[in-house]
């Protein structure tokens, strides 16, 4: 009987039910879409923030002071400590290995250069710095896996000016910083002689590099070439790591040594910059890994602000969706006061009438909520593709959340008018007063 009344009500007034269901679906679609976006946006934006470059600096633990200005080390090669390149694949074995988006070793060597071919042959030799690094180096991770990394991922703002290209690792090639090139009149295709007391070599210029930093005054070469000049085969001095991190909070900043067992576990297994640097220090012997505070702090602040903003907007969307659904539910009950009167006149108790209407709303909420979830997932995916160019994963957890929300809002919206309707005397309602 109960089910028959509900079925009747759906088949007899399909248009009205359709409108209520559509409102529910729309509201829940917006709620699903905004919630999905708000939940995923932190990860997405954190990945986008890698356009700022490396956020971790790895250096030898026992080292002399680098004579560093603008990211270039001017120390002579015989001072200070070095780290082995062979250890680097271990970076992709730490707990948060998938968050390591790139790493680049650097080795800076002071050299004398002279131009050997091209427009300005014969100019006096000048002092400059040779920066050895990887551009897009393939690292063997063992078990056949490889990982391509280098300045393209850790220093994405380094640009080769038009008409040039990056050096090949195998060849005796180099790229020359823009300032150095224009002061010494060096062009793509020229041959540059580079010399230290120990070694000298001729390098072909394949491109002019513009970074806006101290590298504009240096010559950038494959890491192996710099290692040869430094007499330090297989070694580097400084490693820049670009890792996707979770914005720091008070817990993230806590000192791991002072955390209790369970808290330590939780801290270690969160992608805080502190826990990733600790894992790097554990993986590579004799290193110190530190957050580049400019990038880490700035990123944390901006991400924090944006996520507060998005949560406010999401909250507004949820309230708007709730109001839309609640008011439609309320209207649909109000419109049927006459039915309530009739049922009561036929002897139905208030609780039966209430159960009947609530059952109807529940059914509508489940259908509308399910439909809304599907639309919302599509909407979120479309939004994510439009804004970030990557589709966002649908979260299954959102389905029960959406359905639950739809049921709560639909029932909350109908309870108030139902209570009012239950107080009515059936006679005046039936008379149409």
């Amino acid at each position, binding site marked *: 009987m109960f089910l028959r009344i509900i079925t009747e009500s759906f088949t007899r007034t399909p248009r009205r039910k359709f409108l209520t269901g559509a409102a529910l679906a729309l509201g829940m679609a*917006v709620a699903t879409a905004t919630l999905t976006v708000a939940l995923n946006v932190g990860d997405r934006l954190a990945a*986008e923030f890698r356009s700022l470059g490396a956020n971790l600096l790895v250096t030898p633990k026992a080292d*002399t002071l680098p004579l560093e200005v603008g990211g270039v080390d001017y120390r002579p090669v015989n001072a200070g400590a070095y780290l082995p390149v062979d250890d680097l694949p271990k970076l992709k074995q730490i707990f948060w290995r998938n968050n390591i988006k790139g790493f680049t070793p650097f080795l800076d060597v002071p050299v004398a250069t002279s131009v050997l071919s091209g427009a300005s042959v014969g100019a006096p030799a000048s002092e400059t710095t040779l920066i050895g690094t990887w551009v897009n180096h393939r690292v063997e991770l063992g078990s056949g896996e490889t990982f391509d990394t280098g300045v393209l991922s850790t220093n994405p703002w380094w640009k080769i000016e038009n008409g040039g290209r990056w050096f090949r690792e195998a060849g005796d090639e180099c790229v020359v910083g823009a300032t150095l090139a224009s002061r010494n009149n060096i062009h793509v295709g020229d041959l540059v002689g580079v010399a230290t007391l120990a070694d000298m070599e001729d390098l072909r210029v394949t491109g002019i590099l513009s970074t806006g930093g101290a590298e504009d005054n240096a010559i950038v070469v494959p890491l192996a070439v710099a290692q040869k000049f430094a007499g330090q085969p297989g070694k580097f001095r400084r490693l820049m790591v670009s890792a996707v991190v979770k914005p720091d909070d008070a817990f993230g900043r806590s000192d791991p040594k002072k955390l209790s067992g369970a808290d330590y576990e939780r801290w270690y297994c969160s992608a805080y910059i502190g826990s990733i640097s600790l894992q790097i220090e554990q993986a590579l012997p004799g290193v110190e890994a530190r957050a580049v*505070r400019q990038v880490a702090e700035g990123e944390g602040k901006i991400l924090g602000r944006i996520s507060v903003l998005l949560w406010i907007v999401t909250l507004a969307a949820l309230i708007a969706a709730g109001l839309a659904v609640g008011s439609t539910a309320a209207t649909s009950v109000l419109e049927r006061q006459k039915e309530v009167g009739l049922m009561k006149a036929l002897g139905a108790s208030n609780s039966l009438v209430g159960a009947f209407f609530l059952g109807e709303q529940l059914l509508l909420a489940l259908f509308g909520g399910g439909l809304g979830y599907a639309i919302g997932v599509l909407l979120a995916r479309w939004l994510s593709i439009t*804004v970030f160019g990557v589709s966002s994963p649908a979260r299954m957890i959102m389905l029960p959340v959406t359905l639950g929300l739809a049921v709560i809002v639909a029932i909350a919206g109908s309870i108030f008018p139902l209570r009012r309707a239950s107080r009515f005397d059936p006679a005046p309602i039936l008379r149409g007063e």
Partner: protein
Amino acid sequence: MFWRILGQLFSASRGRLAVALLALASGAAVTTALINLNLDAVRKVSGEFRTLGANVIVGPHANGSAESELINESVLLKLAPALESAHGVAAPYLYSVVTVDAGADQQSKKAQVIVAGSWLDRASQLSPWWKITGRPISDRNDMENCLVGRNVALQLGIQPGSRIVLNYADSAGNRTASLTVAGVIDSGAQEDNQIIANLPVVQKFSGLKDRIGMVQMIIPGTPPEIESAISQLSATVPALEVRAVPQIAQAEASLLPRIRGLIFFMVALILVLTTLCVFASMAALAMERRRDVGLMKAIGGSISRIVRIFFTEAAALGLAGALIGYVAGIFLSRWIGQRAFHVAISARPEVLPIVVALMVIVSLAGALPLRLLGRVRPAEILRGE
């Protein structure tokens, strides 16, 4: 007659109208706040990017000779007016290498260290991420104190309060400067390996009077505003190169459109939903007027005149709701701005006509079904069918 009926309508069903007005006003408030937010979002978010530090630097031209690598301090005065009009912050930098002597007692430690000369009151504004143990230096004429990078402090056993001696030697002989360490900087970058003192200190011992290496600046504003500030600054110092810091500029250029797109789409979704919500409650109100329409028709009113009455009612409601909502929306956008950015989002007057038009149109659209009643015979409506 028309106005009297209208007045009667308003006073007779105050309860229902109040509900409709509430729906309209809250819709208008949300609309106002979100449009304000959307218009201000880029400015506010790009303001947040300034926590990344200097985004513009002034230095010698790339094609100058190596001798002209240092620039005259007087450029700071030349840059000042353009800088002020762009609300920027600037600090000069001059680098030098010295031998540092820490601890005057028997266990004296020495090391070669880069010393940066700057305006220390400004330098910490340009690098807001510095974590300073000890105390910062807030006077650019302080010739007694300096800040020391974390690695320098670790290697030389320096603590806030220590005395250090900087020895500088060149062809003109040896010069020294004796300084007190005010604080230790932790930055995770080059400053960790440097000593930072006020500019005159470094100029004096390195014999580079009135010379600086470069100027770093924070220029606030959206990317186009920064562009125009850069061209104004270059116009004042044509001999130097003023350029955006590519790391910051490119990250901003790739992130800002995404954030703006995100906010825009979320706001658009909510606006559609809010509009539909308001539309639904206005339509419900209009349907309740069916009986009034039937009665008026039965006593001989023309349908166009009757509909005009109800449309005027709807429009008046829309207008009143929009005005109330606009005022509420100003407070709402202030609140959102305070929560998200700690700065109020400014209310824009151009939002008012948009909100009024939207609300009036939505309430008229909600009343539109009443026109259909023209076809209906009054008796049917009065019978309640």
